[in-house]
């Protein structure tokens, strides 16, 4: 704690019993142990310590949140939620670090990802998945040619459906066989989110 105080000395510190409401701007590091409400913009680092509460729209270069932040944070460099950090609001920063134990509710926007990193990897699975999704719908053209013998197509449809989901009723299975195709598009999005986090861990 004493070391922290030494590090923080010379910079601005908002003590634990202090409440600032209004607009706060500055060009130096700011350590908040008390409360700040309103608007906060710095060209350097904001440190919200465990006792600190910030209810403000924050514009900074870096933010390290170990306390409570309610409001949006826009950082030109990074936002870090430590294991004690609690935040409700949106984060917009090229680097966002959320460690185990932190609690956060809101949106994260890392902006455009640096070229040649994860974007190509992510786009390829999407393009691979979409054709498979579209390969299933093509059946509609087939019925036109197979209209002469609907029983055969119905049999193949139920056969393929039965292969996918055995035990279901044939009439419903047919609709279910067509409903799965919309589902695949969501996994890539989930996978994209998962990959984003993996990238974060790599950066750490």
């Amino acid at each position: 704690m004493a070391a922290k105080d030494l590090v923080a000395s010379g910079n601005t510190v908002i003590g634990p019993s202090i409440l600032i409401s209004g607009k706060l701007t500055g060009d130096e590091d700011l350590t908040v142990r008390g409360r700040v409400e309103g608007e906060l913009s710095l060209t350097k680092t904001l440190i919200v310590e465990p006792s600190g509460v910030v209810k403000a729209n924050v514009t900074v270069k870096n933010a390290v949140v170990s306390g409570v932040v309610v409001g949006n944070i826009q950082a030109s460099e990074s936002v870090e939620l430590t294991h004690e950090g609690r935040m409700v609001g949106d984060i917009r920063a090229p680097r966002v670090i959320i460690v185990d134990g932190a609690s956060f509710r809101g949106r994260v926007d890392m902006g455009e990802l640096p070229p040649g990193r994860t974007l190509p990897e992510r786009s390829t699975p999407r393009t691979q998945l979409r054709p498979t999704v579209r390969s299933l719908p093509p059946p509609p053209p087939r019925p036109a040619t197979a209209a002469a013998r609907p029983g055969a197509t119905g049999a193949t449809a139920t056969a393929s459906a039965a292969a996918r989901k055995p035990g279901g009723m044939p009439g419903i299975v047919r609709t279910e066989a067509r409903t799965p195709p919309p589902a695949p598009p969501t996994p890539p999005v989930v996978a994209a989110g998962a990959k984003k986090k993996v990238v974060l861990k790599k950066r750490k």
Partner: protein
Amino acid sequence: MANTVIGSSIVIDGEISGDEDLVIQGTVKGKISLRESLFVEGSGVVEADIETQNVEIAGRVTGNIQASDKVELKADCRVVGDVKAPRILIADGASFKGNVDMDVKER
């Protein structure tokens, strides 16, 4: 010591309240109310009404000051506004314009 410091490049437009000492090296506009001491250092600029126990001013203050204990205007400070406190010290070299009320309770 849980000191609150407003650094020299910080500008606060609003209200500051609290129960601890406050050191101002930057700029504060609005209102300051504390139950402890306020120090306005040489680089500090305050355009606010101040309500505290003690005030020591070495910088610039524009606004009314009310202290429950003491107001000290140090050399090289520039203060414009009314000062109300039981004890008021004005050092040689201080610049001050305003009313002084030492709240002399006549009994």
